[in-house]
């Protein structure tokens, strides 16, 4: 009676799964090519954040680093990744609203590849966003002194975290009724989490109770690890908890997302 009694892709081996996921990625990439404004949230917005915070607020904020821009970049990176990741849910909710998902469900394809294709595309979007921000940051004084390995580690951690968040997006996209409602929820949830973190300020300047929360929430841990990797070339004390959070979110939200999607579409 439930979705679990169905044997989903009976014939699907890893080859057909990859091929199906690639078809989904290809479709999403064509969308981006035909409507480039889909990339605004991972291009223009982060550039504006880099410029606004570094040039407008930067002079007024004291941070435990040599320059505000060096401190700031990790926060901007992770904020952008977080928004792009959860935004996956809005794009999925849009798919659910029109008949396309019904078409996919009537095909002998691997059903989870619809979701995997979606999240993999968003990983590509996030990679593009990181590249753009990195360059813009360099132009206004960002000097990552952590070396190539530190940089690679930072990007890897960001993408892992972003991939995990995109599965939160999938679960929410399948559970929430409309894309518009989901956008409201994302705004209300992700904004406070980025500001009550070490993204833009030193958490030691916050009231004690808020600092206690800020230092323990995953955004701060990922930001601190990325900051340490880009500037010092080591993960610092936050790296292991940051990876555990990402893997933990993925372990919960990957099956939850597939379950919610099946439940929603089998109605």
């Amino acid at each position, binding site marked *: 009676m439930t979705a679990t009694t169905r044997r989903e892709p009976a014939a699907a081996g890893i080859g057909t799964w990859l091929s199906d996921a690639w078809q989904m990625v290809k479709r999403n990439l064509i*969308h981006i090519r035909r409507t480039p404004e889909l990339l605004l949230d991972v291009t223009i917005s982060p550039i504006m954040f880099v410029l606004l915070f570094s040039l407008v607020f930067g002079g007024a904020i004291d941070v435990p680093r040599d320059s505000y821009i060096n401190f700031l970049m990790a926060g901007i990176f992770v904020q952008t990744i977080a928004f792009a990741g959860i935004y996956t849910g809005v794009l999925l909710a849009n798919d659910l609203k029109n008949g396309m998902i019904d078409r996919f469900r009537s095909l002998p394809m691997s059903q989870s590849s619809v979701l995997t294709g979606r999240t993999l595309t968003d990983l590509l979007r996030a990679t593009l966003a990181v590249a753009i921000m990195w360059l813009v940051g360099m132009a206004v004084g960002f000097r990552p002194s952590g070396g190539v390995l530190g940089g690679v580690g930072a990007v890897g951690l960001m993408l892992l975290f972003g991939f995990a968040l995109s599965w939160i997006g999938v679960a929410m996209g399948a559970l929430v009724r409309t894309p518009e409602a989901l956008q409201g929820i994302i705004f209300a949830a992700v904004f406070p989490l980025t500001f009550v973190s070490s993204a833009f300020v030193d958490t030691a300047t916050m009231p004690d109770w808020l600092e206690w929360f800020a230092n323990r929430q995953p955004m701060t841990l990922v930001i601190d690890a990325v900051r340490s990797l880009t500037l010092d070339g080591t993960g610092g004390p936050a790296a292991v908890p940051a990876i555990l959070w990402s893997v933990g979110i993925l372990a919960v939200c990957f099956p939850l997302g597939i379950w919610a999607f099946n439940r929603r579409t*089998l109605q």
Partner: protein
Amino acid sequence: MTHSDTAVIRARALEKHFGETHALRGIDIDVPEGRILAVLGPNGAGKTTAVRILATLTLADGGEATGAGVDVRTHPAEVRARIGLTGQFAALDELLTGRENLDMIGRLYHLPGSTVRRRVGELLARFDLEDAADRPVKTYSGGMRRRLDLAGSLVAEPPILFLDEPTTGLDPRSRLGMWQLISELVAGGTTLLLTTQYLEEADRLADQIAVMDHGQVIARGTADELKARVGGERLVVTIARSDQLDAAARAIASLGGEPQVDAPQRHVSIAVNGGDGILTRAVRALDAAGVAVDDAGVRRPTLDDVFLVLTGQHPDADMQAASSVDVRELDEVPA
């Protein structure tokens, strides 16, 4: 795997609830290989729910369904490899071109690349979409979308096809085009289940018709068998004023038999058994009762009559009520 006497599309005692709504109340469906079944019924009868269960999109709450002998609940992926589905709303990617949509579907059926390219080319040509093939679907007309959607269901040449209201919302010319395409398909041996609100469509395309209302199959048979249930030829008179329906029914009843009254249409009808001069006698009786007659004639029963006899109302009663209101409003305009 299937014999000609075994149903390729089969359902037994299908049940489905949506909250308080009892969408399906135990329906049976059998479509033998290479045949067309039309499921006919008004909006909300449960037609789409039945198709969605048979096409693995929705889980039934009770009963069982098979496609080509394979259980849709336990082996949905194997069923999907054998079916094509064209839903009520075009399931196309608006931003992809027509060709890209078909190509994607073909590859998701796991057909070899060369087969996909050949089939996509054939279908675009056959469905008269070659000129528009490389334009995004969002630029297509309603008729073009429906054709592309149908083409999408055919990429893998599935032996079983479900068409859910394939012509709803199409203009008459596009509808004729779809009928032509559907007829050709089934001539090629496809087993087809189609749902429709159009009696003419069922009459024209289907071998067998199942009439659905409120989640149940209330009648089934060939178009001729269903028509026979209303009893041979019918005398139908259309009267000029709705307030004379009762008087007209009494006058017609005096000819012998039980008249059917279709109030929205202002029709009063009765079965006639080759009685001579029935039309003349009817008009005289109506005239004597002071009933003004717009039209009168003897005709073979249509599926409209079948539905009226089976359910006491028109399948599209709401629409016809609305249009007869319009007529009355026009009548009241001073000359």
